[in-house]
């Protein structure tokens, strides 16, 4: 990407039969990670968040090196300052919606953190769900709470794994807009996994295409869309004339 990269991730890892070998970077413009099912998107996000260590590679966010296989650096998840929304919600079942959102806010300003959390719930359209436990929430409601929880903690980087997949169309549109303005405002690098072209467009995201553990294409969405190198990209951008342009290799 550009020389002004805010984060870079150079990762080699294996997971079962999948071999992940990628190099990504980004600035403050949101980055969308797209790719077919099983390409390794969730695995990549989990590695960035610190769930597992890559075999080789280097990950930097801002001026902090959070992983480097050369010198053995491997920061614990709590020191990486990433906000992670896992695929499938991942709400704490013992906390109410408000409790979930307030979890990441420093506990010393208790009433203030409650207020902030309530405010964030309102932003994601879940104000009236404050007191509910996750088991009493619908799929889309859970996803809103999970998103609010990741946004409120003011992390150095956001990792969102299909954050809008269960939302209804209105919520999706509103939250896309909210996310775009929120990200522009807090100026945090963001990596968002999505299967929806409209998410990419709304966020005006830089696109990485992950296929079979490798980056097959990258660029602004209109760049990628105009020169699809695989069926997947062509389909994703609904490119009508499917003459695939040659890949980068």
């Amino acid at each position, binding site marked *: 990407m550009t020389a002004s990269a805010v984060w870079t991730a150079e990762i080699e890892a294996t997971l079962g039969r999948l071999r992940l070998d990628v190099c990504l970077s980004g600035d403050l413009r949101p980055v969308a990670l797209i790719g077919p099912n099983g390409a390794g998107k969730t695995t990549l996000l*989990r590695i960035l*968040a*610190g*769930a597992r260590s890559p075999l080789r590679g280097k990950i930097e966010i801002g001026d902090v090196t959070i992983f480097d296989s050369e010198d053995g650096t491997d920061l*614990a*998840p*709590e020191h*990486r300052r*990433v*906000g*992670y929304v*896992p695929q*499938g919600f*991942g709400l*704490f*079942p*013992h*906390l109410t919606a408000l409790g979930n959102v307030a*979890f*990441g806010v420093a506990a010393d300003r208790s009433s203030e953190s409650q207020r902030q959390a309530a405010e964030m719930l309102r932003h994601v359209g879940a104000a009236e769900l404050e007191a509910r*436990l996750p*088991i009493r929430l619908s799929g889309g409601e859970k996803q809103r709470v999970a998103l609010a*929880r990741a946004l409120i*903690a003011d*992390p150095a980087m956001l990792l969102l794994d299909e954050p809008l997949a269960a939302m209804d169309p209105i919520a999706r549109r509103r939250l896309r807009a909210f996310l775009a303005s929120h990200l522009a405002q807090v100026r945090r690098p963001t990596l968002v996994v999505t299967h929806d072209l409209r998410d990419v467009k709304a966020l005006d995201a830089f696109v990485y295409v992950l296929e079979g553990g490798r980056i097959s294409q990258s660029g602004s969405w209109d760049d990628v869309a105009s020169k699809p190198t695989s069926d997947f990209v062509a389909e994703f951008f609904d490119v009508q004339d499917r003459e695939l342009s040659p890949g980068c290799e």
Partner: protein
Amino acid sequence: MKWARASVLSLGFLLLGLLVVPAMALLVAASPAELAQGVAHPLFGPSLWLSLRTTMLSLAIVVVCGTPLAWWLASAQGWPQRLADALVELPIVMPPAVVGIGLLETFGRSGLLGGPLELLGIQVAFATPAVILAQVTVSAPFYVQAAAAAFRRVDPDLLLVARTLGQSPVGAFARVAIPIAMPGLVSGGALAWARALGEFGATLLFAGSLPGTTQTMPLAIVLALESDVRAAIAISLVLAGAAVLLLLGLRLVAGLRPSDDATSRSKLS
């Protein structure tokens, strides 16, 4: 297929009957006058009080130390964990009396640690601390195993989210793993407490049976058994009744926490 369900369930109720019937038989055989006598028995008061104090303290120790141990056991499936997992059950397979001798060989005056402790002016054996050590040793395995089983079912993704939200490993453990595992911890704690309350053999060997100091309820009961079976039964029944009420209360308190949707669960099983 209705009868398949009924016949499977009836096996279960048969077992429930077996677990309840001994106490019921004793209750039927004992007259109210005998029960009253049991409560008035000179051994009753002091030993009940001692049992309550020591089992509560043992439970506290078991929970405070057993919870991290269980967490470590659940954290991975490597060789150290597997070995430790099996070793934790050592005090269950050995007859309690032998566990008592082992404790004596460890903490007794001539034991491995007894000498150094003696120099510090601490005498463990044949004093109330021995009662607690004996109870901790025989009851901890039940709590640790239950807690480890509960921790193994905590979704690692939730821990990851907690960590990314700034929690240290200990913080994620305390604020996420423990609350999620709580029902398992409570039921394991109830088992361990009950086991400590009924503990006899190791206490007799390691702590002796000194009224007021080391003579817990089961020791008093077995002592009474030697002189007056009826009185012993009456005391046991009072003990069992009190324990069941306590355990029932615990369940009511634990049950206040909303859990899985009760109606749909009962409709499906």
